[in-house]
């Protein structure tokens, strides 16, 4: 009885608290997403007002669209090239920056910069760093090791890696910020214990620091993946998805299909819907798997809740 009134009161309280946010999300994200899910079944054009229900035509087209296939592949390559290196580099930089005694603010400031910069503004610079000219900065650098000048952004072999490099440049900075925060949260006493135990250097990194950064890494894995999947501006300002669609990612492809060319917003919505469903499914599966693993691990040991009971039995 009491439980119920309490739950009821909490229910109202919760409703009052989440309503403003939910209204915002419903009106400006979920609602439009639902509209877009509907549009995904039509041949609507961005430019036009008339449209027809086309059933699963868009879905069938998407499933056999070679350009979408390439965009998916490009996205995976892009993720591979940005996520892992930037997480590794960001971590290493954070570890290094965390251990320097002097000049830490300078290092921190410099490494925060890329995450804070406006990518549209930075594009001007990056386009010329990766200029095809032999005098381009990138070409000058690779020239030092004897590599011929490359048409970095103009060659379908190098465009995606270069875009990924720029994306990674920003992402590394973001990862750095987050890992630096994670590192400061590790209690120093654990490190001191390691020091006395003689667990040092790489062993310390492997057995202590990295495992303790686990939660931060999980957080990053989620956020970085979302950020990477949504990569749009980096592609737009550097290559427009080209040359030959070699740097078109899924999000950019959605833009291309729905906002340029023949403005097929219906088909673009279908792709967006597929993307959303896929990622949510993967995320849900991941969460489920994570829970399974955790449960399995706790079964192997003893459930946390058993500890007090055992303690009592011991007496």
């Amino acid at each position, binding site marked *: 009885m009491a439980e119920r009134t309490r739950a009821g009161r909490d229910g109202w309280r919760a409703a009052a608290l989440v309503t403003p946010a939910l209204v915002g999300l419903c009106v400006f994200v979920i609602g439009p997403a639902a509209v877009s899910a509907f549009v995904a079944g039509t041949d609507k054009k961005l430019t036009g007002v008339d449209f027809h229900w086309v059933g699963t035509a868009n879905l069938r087209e998407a499933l056999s669209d070679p350009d979408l296939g390439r965009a998916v592949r490009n996205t995976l390559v892009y993720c591979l090239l940005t996520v892992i290196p930037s997480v590794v580099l960001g971590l290493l930089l954070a570890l290094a920056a965390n251990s320097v005694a002097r000049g830490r603010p300078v290092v921190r400031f410099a490494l925060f910069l890329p995450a804070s910069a406006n990518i549209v503004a930075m594009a001007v610079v990056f386009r010329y760093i990766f200029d095809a000219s032999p005098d381009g900065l990138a070409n000058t650098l690779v020239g030092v090791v004897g590599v011929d000048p490359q048409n970095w952004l103009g060659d379908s072999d190098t465009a995606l890696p270069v875009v990924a490099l720029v994306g990674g440049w920003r992402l590394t900075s973001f990862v750095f910020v987050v890992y630096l925060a994670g590192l400061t949260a590790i*209690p120093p*006493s*654990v490190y*001191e*214990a*390691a*020091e*006395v*135990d*003689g*667990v*040092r250097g790489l*062993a*310390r990194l492997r*057995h*202590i620091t990295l*495992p*303790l950064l*686990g939660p931060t890494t999980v957080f990053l894995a989620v956020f970085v993946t979302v950020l990477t999947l949504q990569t749009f501006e980096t592609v737009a300002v550097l290559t427009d998805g080209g040359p030959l669609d070699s740097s078109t990612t899924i999000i950019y492809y959605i833009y291309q299909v729905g906002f340029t060319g023949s403005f097929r917003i219906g088909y673009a919505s279908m792709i967006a819907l597929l993307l959303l469903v896929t990622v949510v499914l993967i995320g849900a599966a991941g969460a489920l798997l994570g829970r399974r693993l955790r449960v399995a691990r*706790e079964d*192997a*040991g*003893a*459930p*946390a809740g*058993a*500890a*007090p009971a*055992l*303690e009592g039995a011991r007496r």
Partner: protein
Amino acid sequence: MTAGAVTAVAGARIEAVGIGRTFGPVHALAGVDLTIAAGEIVALLGPSGSGKSTLLRIIAGLDQPTAGDLRFDDRSQVGVPPHQRDVSMVFQHFALYPHLSATDNLVLALRYGRGMSRADARDRAAETLRMLGIADLARRRPAQMSGGQRQRVAIGRAIATRARVVLLDEPMSGLDAKLRVELRVEIVDLLRRLGTTAVFVTHDQAEAMAVGDRVAVMNHGAIEQIGTPDAIYDLPATRFVATFVGSPPMNVFEGTWSDGQLRGPGSGFVVPAPAAATAVGVRPEHLRLVRGASGPSAGGEFSVQGHVVVAERLGAERTMYVRTATGMVGVRVDAAVPVVPDEPVTVTAPATALLCFGPDGRALTVPQARQPS
């Protein structure tokens, strides 16, 4: 803990000579001299901020002294990193590796600090956990253990390496009062059997007395007194030691000295005292409670009057708190003595039970009757 056979270790002799440590303007340690015999257990006792942890960390090698020398068995340890000192440590709040099982917590130190093979390390870890009676915890992580269990694992980690010196920084903090009492008996027993030299930091005087072969009482970065628990309790060298050790603490009464006598304020006590005494102390158990107000004391006996405020039952006895003109006085009485709040009483003590302190806080005379037992 099982009393299983334990490979004994040759504990190291520790010598600290004039150890100082400053943090900017703060003198955390101001010239500490301390010699600890091989295999001895010394309790470092002192209030918060007195420099206990700092001294321990310097012994461990986690911190470097700004002055003085530290020697283990006559080898200077200054500049030697912790893992080369053959010390191990139990940290306040244990500092277990939260992501590792009990076994792995031990294995890590053994493999990387001692270079043991994985198999050997596992064997040693299992043996240690068994010895501590927590073999069934082997696979649990710290979050899945109770406080007492964590404590045992932390101790296991410290002794598994068979280090010649074991340092314990408030190893009982955060544990139940009851558990603390139980565990400290076990820890001391274990350390004794291992034969390691041990330094045990605590700010609980009862714990220090119970655990240490000798107790070093620290205050403001210096050791005020070091001695056996008996010596510390019965022959405190300073007023600080006298009041810090003992629960309820020694009652200290300020007075003014003249003509070989110390007088309390108003119509307070009058007791014989050596020159320049400024205060006199009496332990609660040396005080006697007399019902009703009585006249001033005779024959050098200590006596003050007051009213009963509150009483605390402590096991077989009771501490009666009496409000007097010179402050609250704690008197140890038998549990059978009835408590009547606000009852006027007189508190007396024989002259032999008194301890006088000079203006610098040092104890002035040791009454003949009181020798360390």
